[in-house]
């Protein structure tokens, strides 16, 4: 469910699986206000109603009306990560997990001249 905060207009993304049949409170990632809502089969059937206390479940993600992202501990729920430092952008990798050369970063046409095994062995 998309919860546009009645206060600050932040778009709070209440992701489908945990929020499809939900009764409780969530917290706006933009302004921190607590909102009580009830959903049934994905549709909002009650609320948002201002509430106090701690949120039962945080949004999965949020953004301002101008699309700038809002995330963080205590603000949105953590993302599943494969490593400590996931960035979700192509990352150049030259040495693999046991310290050997692997061709994990962009190349130029000049890099392809000559034998490929030599290129790998020399770790260029």
């Amino acid at each position, binding site marked *: 469910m998309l919860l546009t905060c009645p206060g600050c207009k932040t778009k709070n993304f209440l992701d489908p*699986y945990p929020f499809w049949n939900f009764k409780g409170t969530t917290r706006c990632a933009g302004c921190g206000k607590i909102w009580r809502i009830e959903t049934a089969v994905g549709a909002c059937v009650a609320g948002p109603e201002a509430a106090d206390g701690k949120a039962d479940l945080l949004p999965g993600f949020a953004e301002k009306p101008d699309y700038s992202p809002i995330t963080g501990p205590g603000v949105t729920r*953590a993302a*599943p*990560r*494969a*490593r*400590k430092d*996931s*960035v*979700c*952008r*192509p*990352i150049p*990798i030259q040495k*693999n997990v*046991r310290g*050997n*050369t*692997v*061709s*994990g*970063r*962009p*190349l*130029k*046409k000049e*890099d*392809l001249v000559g034998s*490929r*095994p030599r290129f*790998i062995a020399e770790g260029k």
Partner: protein
Amino acid sequence: MAKDTAATKQATQPFEEFCKETFDFKKAFGKPEALKGYRVLSCTQYILGPSCASYMAELGAEVIKIEAPRRGEAMRHTTPFNEPFLYPLSKWIPERGTGLGFFGANPNEYFISVDFHKPEGQAIVKKLAAKADVMVENYRPGTFDRWGIGYRQLREINPRLVYCWLGGFGGWGPGRVRASYDILGQSQGGNFGMTGKQEFMGGAPAKHTIWLADYWGGMMGAVQILAALYWRDKVSGEGTFTEYSQVHGVTRQLEYALPLYGRHGITRERWGNWDTQFCVHGIIKCGKSSYPQSENPQENEEGYILISAYDDKDFATLCKVAGDGKLAEKYAKHDARVKAKSQMEIYPALEKWAADKSKEQVAAILDKANINNQPVWNAKEVANHPHWQQRGAVQWLDDPTFGDLLHQGPAYKMSHTPPRLKWALKPVGADNEYILGKLAGLSAEEMRKLEEQECI
């Protein structure tokens, strides 16, 4: 003399040692290949078609993968969380890489690029098909027929060709026009709806994490192809057409669900991590993480373990070990404890017992009591486990293009003609000169022209 000594050693050495030597994957290259001399064309994309051809590449067939020029097939452009790529994608686009979504579906193959839409491309395919034993394709039904390179046309050129089409919904029937994906096959075939946490526990259907319908579907295609080759070479001298629908395959896998529905009108529902037919035979949570100091969030999580104690004797032992005499008394007989309500009492009790332990601690206690168990291992634990490493289930590969990679080994072992791993994959069109020169008789000048026109 040497042969006799070797034969005697084999006949008398301890069984485990005999197996270790017989199936040593490091010795594979000293042994012949089961599909030596067979040639397969892989006009495929994504996973269903490509994997089918790859199982034959592991057995030693010469498999030629044919992709769209320059950028190759769509699966090269998928990678988990957008991070890891293997470079170069092709000699034309070295600054881009092949994503790991492509990994594992096309090992040991030769890679050429041909545009099927163009008449020059179709002419090349016909030349290759004349010399091939198998054609594997998973384009929409009727597409290759329209391009003049379908079964009806190719069997005129090569009556010995085994033509294997794989796809989602098949080429005939009311749903034939639907495109398909692996998880669509899982969803519509029926295994998706029964997998996952129980409905009454707030659960939802869960997809199988692997492209099960696709990768396993490719294996089913390969079984059909091997049987067809056997029949051709042994009996008939004729090729054939095989159709494999991946959603059909999923429905084939539903075990007792269809007989139960047909006889009693009962629809099988989700039963989570427990088993509908055996108790105790379920996966429970262990309260402690195995690697609390790790910085990787996957390792910080608490562990899980499968406990398998379904014989009455084993269940009694399990209860003793878990210190729960009441449970032992109440559910001494399997008939009593396999009931749904019984399981709802037993597993939470076991999780209470495991709440202050890691999965390794639970496993150690159960091993000592001779209770079958299997910790739920993550990708790193599997990759580093001596059992899988020794057996070659995962292998460090010195890939000629991309370097040092950990690669899955072949899925099964053979003593005399083991399947084996040669290379992981290659850039788009890497073998154009070699294959098109060898099999299509194209000169360097002709290839240059076709390349300019992006026919290859």
